[in-house]
């Protein structure tokens, strides 16, 4: 437990030394934002390493536009207030573009700040449709949105013959949005939503809810929020003897899910990008990531790597650090990433879907055997 | 002076820097009832509080049976032989009469000894025995005073400090309490009695001190003080 703190301290030290260096030399500042503390801190840890890899590689190759890149790292703690503060801090420190953003709740209020400052923002994982709606035009999503995720979910439910569904969210922008889309789509496809619930973040006891879901005879339960609550819900559902299908959104796609819930999660479905081990360049990336950071990559490490590459490529293509030119270059992105191909739609969302339904087994997620 | 139970020399004390007791010296001999008299605000209650460690002594020495007890914590005094029955009785209203008595002997670990003492208290105050299972706040004022004294006796004190035992009681009750004080003296307990009702107090005491603005202004045999016309007029009030 202590090593985590030490690392955070070391990170702060590195960051402050970088900042003072940046003031002196010819550099380009790129912002990075993710939860580094709080319940979703593992997301920050697994993405910052990947972005640093891209920066290190680019700087070793001479940088961008002839200048070295300096990464300014900030913490949004997956929280709207801290997300706003982190965005203001990045803008005032003079970054020309930002990569990161794991939680929709923290990203949505930050969009206007980047928009007003004309700072392009490549969003790694946050994917609420509210981001798409609130996008001032400078934000790009490399992760599929809730709509795409819901399509994947509906396909799974249809395959498994699910007729009745219970949906549970945590009341935040991301999970409430996903729950609403799922309910609409499930009803549209002829199914019946027998229970829709919202829990408070940080709540530990789901027993009353579990009893209601069981009583409502739901064939499947869809948890649209994050892994903390998801782990508790799965455990309590299974303990109560619930036999139906359990599906969790990509918000729960984190290793913590397994450490907390243990073997009870086996057989549950989690939506997310294809795992590294099932990607063509995945093994090589895992090795590089481990060599660079000393840790195994997380579920979003590859996507964060791709996002940083897409951003730096766009800056190179724009030939300037001017925001609008970079946005224009981003719109023309055609990139074959480790996690999959990246190109953007009219609305700056990912073309196609990178989501698949993964099944949990033995402490890991894998592509289900057909 | 082996027969001196309480020996106070030049005691000064107060609250948060405001001195209310000045240079008080007094002696209480074994088996006697000594009265401390004075008008409201003369410092009588403060004197008892200083003796029992509820307020700190700033100067002076207090000795209980030759042992110095100046500024030792209040909760160590019952075991040392001195019990303070405070003004206003301070019984534990939401606890039963029996529980109040058990607490009076808190420092006595042996339950059997406590039960023997409870039986003795019940002999002195039969009404408490009758109502022992009831919550104490149901008792009348006089009965509450009996409980307060009975609770004080549970520690088997050598010296009992009684603060205004007659306060707020009907005359018939006052008489009953005073009879009990006489009985306690007969049983060998030494008593320091603080009273505003000085006429009654002097009738039952052996010796008296007059307190005025935190100083002792007069002392003497109870009978002598009771005869002094000027004292009667100034401190004891016309009847």
């Amino acid at each position, binding site marked *: 437990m202590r090593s985590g703190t030490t690392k955070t301290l070391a990170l702060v030290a590195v960051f402050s030394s970088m900042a003072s260096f940046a003031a002196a030399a010819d550099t380009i500042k790129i912002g990075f934002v993710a939860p580094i503390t709080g319940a979703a801190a593992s997301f920050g840890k697994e993405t910052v390493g990947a972005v640093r890899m891209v920066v290190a590689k680019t700087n070793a190759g001479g940088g961008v536009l002839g200048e070295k890149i300096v990464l300014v790292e900030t913490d949004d703690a997956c929280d709207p207030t801290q997300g706003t503060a982190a965005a203001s801090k990045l803008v005032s420190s003079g970054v020309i573009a930002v990569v990161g953003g794991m939680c929709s709740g923290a990203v949505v209020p930050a969009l206007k700040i980047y928009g007003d400052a004309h700072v392009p923002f490549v969003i790694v994982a946050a994917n609420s449709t509210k981001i798409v709606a609130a996008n001032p035009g400078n934000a790009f999503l490399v992760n599929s949105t809730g709509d795409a995720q819901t399509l994947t979910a509906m396909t799974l439910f249809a395959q498994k013959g699910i007729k009745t569904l219970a949906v549970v969210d945590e009341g935040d922008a991301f999970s409430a949005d996903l729950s609403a889309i799922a309910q609409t789509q499930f009803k549209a496809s002829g199914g019946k939503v027998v229970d829709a619930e919202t829990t*408070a973040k940080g709540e530990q006891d789901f027993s009353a809810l579990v009893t209601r879901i069981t009583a409502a005879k739901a064939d499947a339960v869809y948890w649209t929020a994050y892994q903390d609550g998801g782990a508790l819900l799965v455990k309590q559902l299974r303990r109560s003897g619930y036999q139906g299908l359990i599906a969790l959104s990509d918000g729960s796609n984190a290793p913590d899910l397994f450490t907390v819930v243990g073997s009870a999660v086996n057989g549950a479905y989690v939506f997310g990008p294809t795992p590294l081990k099932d990607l063509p360049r995945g093994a090589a990336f895992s090795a590089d990531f481990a060599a660079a950071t000393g840790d195994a990559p997380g579920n979003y490490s590859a996507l964060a790597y791709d996002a940083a590459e897409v951003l730096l490529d766009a800056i190179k293509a724009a030939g300037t650090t001017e925001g609008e030119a970079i946005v224009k270059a981003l719109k023309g992105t055609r990139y074959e990433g480790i996690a999959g191909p990246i190109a953007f739609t009219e609305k700056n969302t990912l073309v196609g879907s990178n989501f698949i339904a993964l099944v949990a087994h033995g402490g890991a997620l894998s592509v289900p055997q057909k | 002076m082996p027969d001196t139970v309480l020996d106070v020399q030049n005691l000064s004390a107060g609250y948060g820097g405001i001195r209310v007791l000045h240079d008080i010296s007094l002696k209480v001999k074994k088996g006697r009832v000594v009265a401390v008299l004075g008008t409201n605000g003369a410092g009588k209650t403060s004197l008892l509080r200083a003796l029992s460690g509820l307020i700190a002594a700033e100067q002076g020495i207090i000795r209980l049976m030759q042992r110095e007890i100046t500024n030792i914590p209040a909760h160590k005094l019952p075991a040392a032989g001195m019990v303070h029955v405070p003004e206003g009785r301070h019984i534990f209203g939401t606890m039963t009469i029996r529980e109040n008595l058990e607490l009076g002997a808190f420092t006595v670990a042996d339950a059997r000894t406590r039960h023997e003492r409870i039986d003795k208290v019940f002999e002195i105050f039969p009404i408490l025995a009758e109502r022992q299972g009831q919550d104490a706040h149901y008792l009348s004022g006089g009965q509450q005073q009996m409980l307060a004294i009975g609770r004080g006796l549970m520690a088997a004190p050598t010296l009992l400090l009684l603060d205004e035992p007659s306060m707020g009681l009907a005359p018939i009750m006052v008489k009953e309490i005073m009879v009990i004080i006489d009985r306690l003296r007969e049983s060998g307990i030494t008593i320091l009695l603080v009273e505003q009702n000085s006429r009654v107090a002097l009738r039952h005491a052996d010796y008296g001190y007059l307190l005025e603005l935190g100083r002792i202004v007069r002392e003497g045999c109870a009978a002598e003080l009771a005869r002094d016309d000027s004292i009667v007029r100034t401190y004891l009030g016309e009847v």
Partner: protein
Amino acid sequence: MGFFLQQLMNGLILGSFYALIALGYTMVFGVLKLLNFAHGDIYMVGGFVGLLILKLGSSWLGSGWLGVVVALFGSAALVGALGMLIERVAYRPLRQAPRLSVLITALAASMVLNSAVLALTGGRPVAFPADLGFVGYDLGPIHISVIQMALLVSTLILMLVLELFVSRTQYGRAMRAVSYDMVASRLMGIDVSQIVSLTFFLGSALAAIGGVFAGSYYGSLHFFMGFIMGLKAFTAAVIGGIGSIPGAMLGGLTLGLLETFGSSIPFIGSEWRDVAVFGALIFFLVLKPTGILGKTMVERI
């Protein structure tokens, strides 16, 4: 009917947690008239201490019942001592200070515990290394697991023992005496500081037991879990009558049931459960501040 009984069971289990924590709240309030805001965090720390005991002793304790029982007792003892330490360091020097100062100190103590665990765990939830399995029984329409039974039974036993201690022993009487009249208690030869320490020990030990149970039952611990629990235990104590030990038990169980059924009203979803809980708090504070079992409130906060 089955639904109703199962929800009743859920409510009782949740209520047991609230009651365990509310007891400490109410005992400390009774003795010191202090709302010990650090109490929820004591519960949280109790869980983490249990986790440490299980981790350190995993080789010979295992992760089954033996380990959990050792963790329960070990955490109760250590965290009880921590509660005494907090009182000694943070509250005792302020015994004569205005009540507001002590209240602020209590908030500070809460943040110290909270932030310390945040720093140590990095803010991530930590899996509780106990595996008691999912073995359970179907009693008619109710499904009850072994750990749920253990939780209910232990809570009842603890409350019974506490009630006997407080009503039948000299130290228990002394606790009630101190809570009723501190000055008179000193005159009886009661060392008030010692009784206050004892109260903090017992209250913190019960909260620690709650914390270890929470870890074993829910499977994970989080540095923030004490916050909401503290609020709800406070609510339970108010509902039952703050300062009253049977009141804390009754208030805890009432709150658990209220919360479970409050979120089961048709068309009103689980997002309303905290509305039910804190609505009850306001209701009682406004209309019956003495709670169900409380005696007349003498003290103002």
